[in-house]
C-alpha cells in the first residue's frame, strides 16, 4: 500500500530477529533510529547541499557557464562543482586548518606563529565560539526550565557595560581586577534578567514579550551610557567607551606576540560547560529546574516553589549571558561602542538557535557553537578568497537550524524511522505553558 505502512510492518516483523544481525546491519538500524546526532549530522549535510545550490544559482560566472549549457554541458557542471568546491574549501581552511599549510608547518617548523599562522583559523573559530558557548548555555538552562529567555542579548550587553565600567574605571592589580570585571559582567546580566524574572513570577507577564522588548531598552541604554556618562572615552564624541585596563583583559593564551587571538575566555567557557553539566545533572537546584520545565504543575505539587525557581532561572540564565558579554569585551574587543552586540553581531540571539541545535544540553551546545563559529569565520575567508558573499554562511546556518527544528522533514528525506525530538519539544513547549 504505502511505503510507511510497509516500513512499519517490516520493522515489527524484523524486531525479534535483531540479535542475529551483522554489525553493519545493526549500525544501519541505529542510523534508521534517527538518533539526534544523526539528525543533526544529516541537517548539516543538507545545509551544505542547499548552500551549494545557492552558490550555483547566484554566482555570475557559474550562471554564465549554464547559459552555454547546450554548447558545452560538461563545462557548466565543472564550473559549478569548481566554485562550490572552492567555496567550501575556503570555508574549511579558513575556520579549521589548511592541510597543505599544516603539512608545511609540520615538516619545516615554520609558520606556527605570526599573523597568518596555520593555527589562526582554529584560533579565530575558538575566539568566536567562546562567548557563544557561555550565552547558549544560559539560554539552554532557561529552555530546560521551560523559560524562553529571548533577552540573552540585552543581558549580554548589560554584562558588557558593567564589565567595561569596572574594567576601565577602577585601577587595581590583575589578580583582583580581572575577577572583579567578570563578576561585574555577571551582575549586569543578572540585573537585566531579574526584571523579566520578577514580572513573570509576580504578575504573569509573558517572558518572551518582556525580554524581547527589554533588548531594545538595553540597546538604547547602551547608547546613553556611551554618549552621556563617564564611560565614554575622554575626547571622543563617537560613542566609544574607554579601553579596559590591561589588568582587566583576558590575555591571549599564546601571548600577544603570537598573533593568535584565542584568549583565556576559552577557559572561562570550559568552566561554564563543566558547571552547567554538574548543575543540570547532579545538583538539587538543577533537578528542580528540569522538573519545573517538564511539568510546572507536577513540580508545584511536589513542593517546588515555582516562583522562586523562575526567578533563580533568570538569575542563572541572565548571569551567564552577562558573562558572555563581558568575555567578549575583556577577551576580544577591549572596549564597547554603540554597535556592541547589536544587529547580526548579537550573540544572544545566535545563542537561541545554537541552544536549539545543541538540544539545550551543554555538550551539544559546545558542538553547535563550534559549528556556528566555524561557518561564520570560514564564511569570511570564503568571501575574501572566492568573492562568494559571507551571507551564504548565514544561509547554511539557517537551513541547518530549520532542519534540526523539523526532524520530520529529515526523517522523510533520509527514510529514518525514529528521529527523536525531545530537546526541541521541550524548548517549544514554553510558548503554551
Amino acid at each position: 500500500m504505502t511505503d510507511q505502512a510497509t516500513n512499519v510492518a517490516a520493522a515489527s516483523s524484523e524486531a525479534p530477529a535483531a540479535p542475529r544481525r551483522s554489525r553493519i546491519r545493526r549500525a544501519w538500524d541505529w542510523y534508521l533510529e534517527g538518533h539526534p546526532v544523526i539528525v543533526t549530522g544529516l541537517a548539516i549535510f543538507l545545509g551544505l547541499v542547499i548552500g551549494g545550490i545557492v552558490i550555483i544559482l547566484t554566482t555570475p560566472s557559474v550562471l554564465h557557464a549554464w547559459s552555454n549549457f547546450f554548447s558545452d554541458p560538461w563545462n557548466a557542471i565543472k564550473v559549478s562543482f569548481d566554485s562550490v568546491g572552492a567555496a567550501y574549501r575556503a570555508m574549511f581552511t579558513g575556520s579549521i586548518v589548511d592541510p597543505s599549510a599544516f603539512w608545511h608547518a609540520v615538516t619545516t617548523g615554520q609558520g606556527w606563529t605570526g599573523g597568518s599562522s596555520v593555527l589562526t583559523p582554529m584560533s579565530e573559530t575558538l575566539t568566536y565560539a567562546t562567548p557563544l558557548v557561555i550565552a547558549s548555555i544560559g539560554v539552554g538552562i532557561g529552555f530546560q526550565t521551560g523559560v524562553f529567555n529571548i533577552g540573552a542579548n540585552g543581558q549580554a550587553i548589560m554584562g558588557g557595560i558593567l564589565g567595561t565600567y569596572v574594567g576601565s574605571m577602577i585601577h587595581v592589580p590583575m589578580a583582583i581586577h580581572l575577577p572583579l570585571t567578570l563578576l561585574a559582567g555577571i551582575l549586569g546580566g543578572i540585573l537585566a534578567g531579574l526584571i523579566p524574572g520578577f514580572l513573570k513570577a509576580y504578575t504573569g507577564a509573558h517572558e518572551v514579550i518582556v525580554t524581547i522588548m527589554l533588548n531594545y531598552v538595553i540597546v538604547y541604554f547602551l547608547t546613553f551610557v556611551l554618549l552621556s556618562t563617564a564611560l565614554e572615552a575622554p575626547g571622543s564624541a563617537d560613542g566609544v567607551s574607554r579601553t579596559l585596563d590591561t589588568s582587566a583583559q583576558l590575555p591571549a593564551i599564546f601571548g600577544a606576540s603570537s598573533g593568535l587571538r584565542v584568549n583565556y575566555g576559552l577557559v572561562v567557557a570550559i568552566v561554564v560547560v563543566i558547571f552547567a553539566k554538574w548543575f543540570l545533572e547532579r545538583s538539587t537546584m538543577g533537578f528542580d529546574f528540569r522538573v519545573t520545565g517538564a511539568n510546572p504543575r507536577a513540580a508545584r505539587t511536589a513542593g517546588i516553589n515555582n516562583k522562586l525557581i523562575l526567578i533563580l532561572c533568570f538569575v542563572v540564565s541572565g548571569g551567564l549571558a552577562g558573562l558572555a558579554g563581558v568575555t567578549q569585551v575583556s577577551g576580544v574587543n577591549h572596549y564597547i561602542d554603540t554597535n556592541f552586540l547589536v544587529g547580526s553581531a548579537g550573540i544572544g540571539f545566535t545563542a537561541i538557535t545554537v541552544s536549539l541545535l545543541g538540544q539545550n544540553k551543554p555538550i551539544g551546545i559546545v558542538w553547535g557553537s563550534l559549528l556556528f563559529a566555524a561557518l561564520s569565520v570560514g564564511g569570511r575567508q570564503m568571501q575574501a578568497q572566492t568573492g562568494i558573499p559571507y551571507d551564504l554562511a548565514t544561509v547554511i546556518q539557517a537551513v541547518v537550524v530549520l532542519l534540526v527544528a523539523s526532524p520530520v522533514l529529515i526523517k522523510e528525506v533520509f527514510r529514518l524511522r525514529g528521529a527523536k525530538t525531545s530537546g526541541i519539544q521541550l524548548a517549544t513547549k514554553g510558548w503554551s505553558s
Partner: protein
Amino acid sequence: MISSSLKGRALRAIAGGSIAALAISSFAVVAPAGATARPHTSGFLACVVTDTGGINDHSFNASAYQGLKDAQKANKSISIKYLSSSSSSDYAPNINTFISEKCGIIVTVGFLMDSATADAANAHPSQKFAIVDDVPTTTSKNVLSLTYLTNQGAFLGGYLAAASTKTGSVATYGGINIPPVTIYMDGFVAGVRYYDKMLKKKVKVLGWTPTSGDRSKGNYNGSGTFAGSFTDQTAGQTITSGFFSAGADIVFPVAGSVGLGSVAAAKSAGTGHQIIWVDTDGCVNDAPDCSWFLGSVTKGVEPSVNAAVSAAAKGTFKGGIYSGTLKNLGTGTVVDSKSVSTTVKNALKTITAGIESGKISVDPTKYPAV
C-alpha cells in the same frame, strides 16, 4: 495516501541527487589545495574593509568601494575585494583576513576603525593601508590617512546660499560638535561672509558663530547649533523649522541622515525653502527630494581612494596624510537647483580658482561679521 507516497518519492529523489552532488563536491573539497589554484589574478589586489554600513550604504562605505572600482577601471591589472563588518568585533579579523590574502593595499573606512587599523599597521609594517576620514596614530609609516579640507567646498556652498537667499538669512547646524562637522559649518560661514564683503550685502548666518583659532591647525573654534546625533531626524526637523521661523530660507545640515529631517521641514514650510546637502550629492543620494536641494557640499572619497589605490599599484604609495581639496576633487560643491543663475555659477568657478591659488582665505574670522 497516494500523494504522501508521491511526496516521499520526490523527497527521496532530491535526497539521492543531493547525496550524489555532495559526494562529488566533497571530493573537490578534499582535493589538495594546490591542485586547483586559487582564483587570484596575477596583478595588484586592492581590498576594502567597510564599516557596518556595508558597500551599499549610499555613503562613505559605498564611496570607498566605488573608489576601488574606479581605480580598477583605469588600471585593469587591479583586482578588488571587500569584506563588510557586522560589528566592531569584525574589524580586526576582517583586516587580518586580507593581510593573509596578501592584499596590496587595505582600505578601511571611518574613525571607528582607527584603533583596529593602527594595530594592524603596527604589527605589519610592510602592509599598505589607507583609512578614510581618520588620522590614526601609528609607529609605522605605512598608513595613508585620507582627510578632507571640506571647508573649501563648504565655502562655495556658503557663497551659493548667500547668493540665492530671498530673505537675507541662511543657517547651518551640525550633528555633534566635533572637528569633522564644524569644519563644514566654518567654511560655510566664511563663504557667506565673503559674499557680503565682495557684494556689500548683509546676509546673516544662523547656527554657527566662529571664533578665532588657527584654521590651518584644524582648530575650527566657535559655537553653534547641534542636533546631538547623526540619526535623529526629528531633531533635524525641529531645528530647521526653528531656523525657518527665524527668517532663514536656506539651511545647511551637517549631520548625516539628520538632514532628512531638514528636508521634511522644507517640504512642510513649502516652496522657497531649500536645503544644501552634505557629504554626497543630494540629487543622487536622495533623488526623490531633488527639487528641495539648492546644492550639495561633497567630500570626495572616491577620488582619494582611487588615488591611494592607483599609487599603491604603481609602487608610488607613501604613508602620511592626504588632504582632499578643491584642486584634487577631495571636496567641492555641486549645484542641484536649476534656478541658480549663470552669473552665480561663474562666480563659483572664479572663487574655486581663487581658493586653489590661495588668494581667497576660507577662514571666516578674516571677514567682517554682519
